[in-house]
């Protein structure tokens, strides 16, 4: 599958791999301490075009296909996951709503800035009482003269502290709610009534932040509804439509991390063999390694196949959920086994394995928990 990619893209992919090894890996432990990605790194990511991977070329992005985009995620998650997270919302849930459903004017205004990494985009859907149950949000938007007035609190909003523009999902018709009463808004940082809370103290992804985002009589221009006034009430559809690809992305991130973990384990096992130590222990961990190889191979094939299906216009709702569950759960299993192989060394933050274990655990929650994915999958299987 990967072999079908263009030579030009292959070059880009190698450039990113090089960037990861030369620039990102060395700052990983520092980021754990500082809980911040160095500005220099963000600049480099901008220059590489990493904020606009899938935004079409006409809007200043790289215009990558799905399979190309996920391949880049695989590369960039071979290190501390915060980097992918930093570009993730601009490439995915933060900008895709505008791309899929926005007016031409909105696209022209926002996408080039997002693609350039000038404006980070974020996506505000989740609320304290509406996690998996997205249809239950209570943030409201009321039209008052030429402005929408937003009120409510969003939670766990990735990149809220660096975002210049938010895609915000809010209720515009309390009666209809998910069935035509929810709309998507473009809210810019600085609009009156928008405030960002302090960052959550998370288990992993220390360099990437999630925050509460509070709307208190927040004034948003009438035309900032995604797709314009004719799309009022279609926000839930917009929100859901950006999720399929998001699930593939999560799968790719988990896969990239898993692949990296396996490679580190291979090195570790080779060293154990060279050192002549622990020969008696070497068979069981080799079997663990074989299991890593098997799962990663399976994960990669299902991911690539699904991405390719999407690029060919297929409906991948069930498949994307399958990919997300399999890849993300696989990555946790592999990370846990890897710590065993590294023994106490694996518990040190100075070792990448320790960071990766904590990072990958997020993927089973983020952008739809494994449980929600299984509900979607079962529903689809029973439909047949």
């Amino acid at each position, binding site marked *: 599958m990967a072999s079908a990619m263009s030579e030009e893209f292959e070059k880009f992919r190698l450039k990113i791999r090089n960037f990861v090894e030369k620039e990102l890996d060395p700052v990983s432990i520092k980021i754990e301490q500082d809980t911040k990605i160095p500005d220099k790194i963000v600049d480099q990511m901008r220059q590489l075009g990493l904020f606009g991977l899938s935004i079409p070329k006409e809007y200043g992005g790289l215009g990558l296909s799905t399979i190309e985009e996920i391949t880049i995620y695989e590369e960039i998650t071979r290190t501390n996951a915060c980097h992918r997270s930093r570009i993730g919302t601009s490439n995915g849930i933060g900008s895709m709503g505008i791309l899929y459903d926005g007016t031409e004017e909105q696209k022209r205004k926002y996408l080039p800035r997002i693609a350039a990494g000038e404006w980070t985009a974020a996506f505000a859907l989740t609320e304290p009482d509406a996690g*998996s149950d997205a249809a239950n949000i209570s943030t409201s938007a009321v039209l008052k003269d030429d402005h929408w007035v937003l009120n409510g609190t969003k939670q*766990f909003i990735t990149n809220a502290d660096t975002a210049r523009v938010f895609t915000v999902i809010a209720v515009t018709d309390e009666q209809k709610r998910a069935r035509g009463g929810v709309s998507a808004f473009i809210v810019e940082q600085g609009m009156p009534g928008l405030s960002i809370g302090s960052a959550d103290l998370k288990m992993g992804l220390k360099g990437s932040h999630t925050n509460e985002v509070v709307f208190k009589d927040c004034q948003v221009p009438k035309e900032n509804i995604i797709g314009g006034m004719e799309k009022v009430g279609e926000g839930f559809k917009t929100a859901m439509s950006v999720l399929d690809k998001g699930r593939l992305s999560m799968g790719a991130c988990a896969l990239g991390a898993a692949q990296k973990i396996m490679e580190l384990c291979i090195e570790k096992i080779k060293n154990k063999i060279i050192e002549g*130590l622990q020969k008696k222990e070497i068979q*069981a961990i080799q079997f663990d390694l074989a299991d890593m190889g098997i799962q990663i191979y399976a994960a990669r094939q299902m991911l690539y196949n699904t991405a390719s299906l999407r690029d060919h216009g297929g409906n991948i709702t069930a498949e994307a959920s399958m990919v997300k569950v399999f890849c993300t759960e696989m990555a946790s299993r592999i990370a846990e086994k890897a710590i065993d192989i590294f*023994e*106490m060394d694996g*518990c*040190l933050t100075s070792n990448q394995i*320790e960071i990766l274990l904590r990072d990958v655990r997020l993927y089973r929650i983020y952008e739809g928990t*494994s449980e929600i994915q299984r509900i979607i999958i079962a529903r689809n299987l029973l439909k047949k």
Partner: protein
Amino acid sequence: MNFELNKEQKQIKKAVKDFVKGEFKKDIIHELIENKAYPAKILNKASELGFLGIHFPEQYGGEALSVFEKILIAEELAIGSSTVGACVSLAGYGTEILLQYGSEKQKKIWLPKVADAEILSSCAFTEPGIGNNIELSQTTAVKDGNSWLINGRKAFAVNGGPLAGFYIVLCKTDSEAGNPEQGLSTMLVEADCQGVSAVDIGNRLGHKLLFISNIEFNNVRIPLENLIGQEHKGYSQVMEFFNHSRLVIAALSVGTAQGAFDRAFAHVKQREQFGQKLIDFQITRHKLAEMITEIENARLMTWQGALACEKGSTNTKLCSMAKLVATRTAMKVCDHALQLLGGYGYVQEYEVEGFYRDAKMSEILEGNQHVQKDVIADTITGKR
């Protein structure tokens, strides 16, 4: 046969529960972690209540109770906080070696200090690069006149650092021994001896309040009488000790699992999604059933191991089984608990992520699952 706690044991359990309720405050613990401070105040109170060295004979400052009571306390402490629980339960780390093999003088001097929380007891067994294969220790103790001269580097010494009163150091005393296991001895090295230096292992996955250090012994001179027990018997002493320490980790892990379960249970009872309490979903209920069953399982295995110790000797097989089952259970239960909390599971404030990290680290401490399986297999095939 009787699987019930007696009255005194129930009282002890209750006393620990009350202590935990009064002293283990989430915010204080997070602050300690933030500041890399030791929970000294809590340890002192635990000492006052007689929880430290509860199995020491009275003349050494203990309560003359048994291993069973010791692990009962460990479990209960970890329910409150797996992190602080580990500090308190491991404050006397290695004292079983003194109890069983030490001279009257060694016991008289050091055990009361441990029971009184004046010092921590520390052990230096493994070395850089040898992992679980401590028979490969290269640190030497050489007789030089009236003293032993100790040189070498040890890794991952629990309680090593500023609060350690002494180290029990596994040293090579016969480099000619055909079987390296028979050329090792344990030495009691006072922590303030010249030439002893300890460096904290730095940031790590879990058990962040525990002091764990790499220790260097540079021409350290100690009196001949500081040999513990017989010369060249160090390896078997340490192996025997591991049976004890594995039980403690097992008990902590049962508590870790129970602590994570309790928090997840409380969460799903109040959290609503899709118009229903989470606890009313079958999938949630099944997960809870799974978790509580595994905890019960792990608890019985741990109790069985501890009961076998009460008869004066340890049962290697049962101790390793307890360690294997309990630590694995803690990981599984914490992982489920984290997932049940969704996004909240990933942030510090809800505590479960801390239990998860401690659980994984406990799986590695005192020998990972491969080590335990090696040991169990050895016992059933007559190799141990």
